């Protein structure tokens, strides 16, 4: 029992020594920047952490915060960017039938586009530029479609009121 405990003590001491040696050794040799104390320090915590989709992760040199990344690694598309673009273009297709289909599509594209823009502005590094461009184009198309549909709708209402009043003037019954 004593021998055993003694053996364990020796083993523990050897492991401690090995640990100390390992800790004092620089983890890697950097020929470009040998005097950088930050890089010579071992960073076991980072090595032990699992790297879930952070292969491109690099520490900022001045200790600044990293921009938030998507959970899947690289950048991802803005949600509904394609839908915004398609709805924005549909807003001009629906100009017939009193401008109501165009108005509905245009307003949906506008609202969704505004939401997507706000999301992109909150963290621009998370989303791809192409999807942002799609959302922006869809939003502009939606704005144009909505404005034209509203103008047409207002024109129709004015026309119907005018025609109705002209017809009414011919056979008016004043009460």
């Amino acid at each position: 029992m004593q021998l055993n405990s003694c053996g364990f003590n020796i083993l523990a001491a050897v492991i401690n020594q090995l640990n100390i040696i390992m800790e004092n050794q620089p983890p890697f040799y950097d020929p470009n920047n040998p005097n950088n104390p930050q890089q010579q320090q071992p960073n076991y915590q980072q090595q032990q952490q699992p790297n879930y989709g952070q292969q491109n992760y690099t520490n900022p040199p001045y200790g600044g915060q990293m921009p938030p990344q998507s959970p899947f690694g690289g950048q991802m598309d803005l949600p509904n960017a394609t839908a915004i673009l398609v709805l924005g273009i549909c807003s001009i297709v629906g100009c017939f039938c009193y401008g109501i289909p165009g108005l509905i599509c245009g307003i949906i594209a506008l609202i969704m586009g505004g939401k997507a823009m706000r999301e992109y502005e909150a963290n621009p590094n998370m989303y791809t530029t192409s999807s942002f461009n799609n959302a922006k184009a869809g939003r502009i198309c939606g704005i144009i479609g909505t404005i034209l549909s509203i103008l047409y709708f207002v024109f129709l209402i004015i026309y119907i009121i005018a025609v109705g009043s002209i017809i009414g003037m011919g056979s008016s019954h004043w009460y």
Partner: protein
Amino acid sequence: MSSWLQQLETHLYSCPIKEFTGMDCPGCGFQRSGIALLRGELLHSLQLFPALIPFLFTWLLLIAHLIFKFKKGAYYVRVSFITTAVLVFGNFFIKMIIHFQHLP
């Protein structure tokens, strides 16, 4: 082919605004223009509804952009859309001028 086109020509969707108010809507002429385009009469198609070809081009460009993801695809779609919108409502505006000129 021609019988199919004749079938299309005789079964056009009537515009509710034209039936109700007697004047054209911004989309009036679309179907006739499409049939003219199917017949191969390009000028007649442009005469009936000048925005049809830019309109079809916009949709084709949009589909191609969504599949192949062009670098400046969104910009081109936007420009094409604005051209279509200007043509649709320009055509409508001219139709309205003619319509109100011929009013009794």
